[in-house]
């Protein structure tokens, strides 16, 4: 069974601080996605990474896929209150599967 563990589970920081969220597994993934979810809403896709070592930037967010495609990180620079939300990673296996397995989530709160 593929599992994705995210850390930390909860993070409360001041506006302007930097932070990194981690997504780890013992399984290899063909692709990995990061989503943000607001209360009562569906997850919204932020990025998809496919190649080991790949780095993608989305404004103040930097996403990295591990060289072995087993882990990923999300780094936010100069966090803002609007970044508050639940961040989810989701990985797709290498066996031709259709499904993405979601991680346990990191709940981020950015205080003004």
């Amino acid at each position, binding site marked *: 069974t593929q599992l994705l563990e995210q850390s930390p589970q909860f993070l409360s920081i001041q506006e302007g601080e930097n932070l990194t969220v981690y997504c780890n597994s013992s399984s290899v993934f*063909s692709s990995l996605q990061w989503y943000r979810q607001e209360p*009562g809403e569906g997850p919204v896709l932020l990025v998809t990474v496919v190649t080991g070592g790949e780095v993608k930037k989305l404004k103040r967010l930097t996403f990295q896929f591990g060289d072995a495609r087993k882990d990923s990180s999300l780094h936010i620079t100069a966090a803002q209150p609007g970044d508050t939300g639940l961040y989810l990673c989701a990985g797709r296996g290498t066996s031709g599967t259709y499904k993405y397995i*979601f*991680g346990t989530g990191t709940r981020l709160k950015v205080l003004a």
Partner: protein
Amino acid sequence: EPEVTQTPSHQVTQMGQEVILRCVPISNHLYFYWYRQILGQKVEFLVSFYNNEISEKSEIFDDQFSVERPDGSNFTLKIRSTKLEDSAMYFCASSEAKGPYGYTFGSGTRLTVV
């Protein structure tokens, strides 16, 4: 921005009753999915659907569950005889292809079984 539409947003049903959750995926998408999220828990895969048939399903998706694309636009999830533990947010998603393409999720249907 194209979106996935789900109805109803909330559904309360008695245990043992049948419910149908409805979704309108993005029009040019070919792959459709149902996920659920029990309060405070992970988003869990239920089923994927392509070319008018189930392409993959999880252990959760037992005989009580079925999916259908009755016309060219709707994608439905039916739970035949609801149980208390079926209470969750149910999310529909669609993607344009099977590869590393992101899903577009709907806003979900909150199902409460009493």
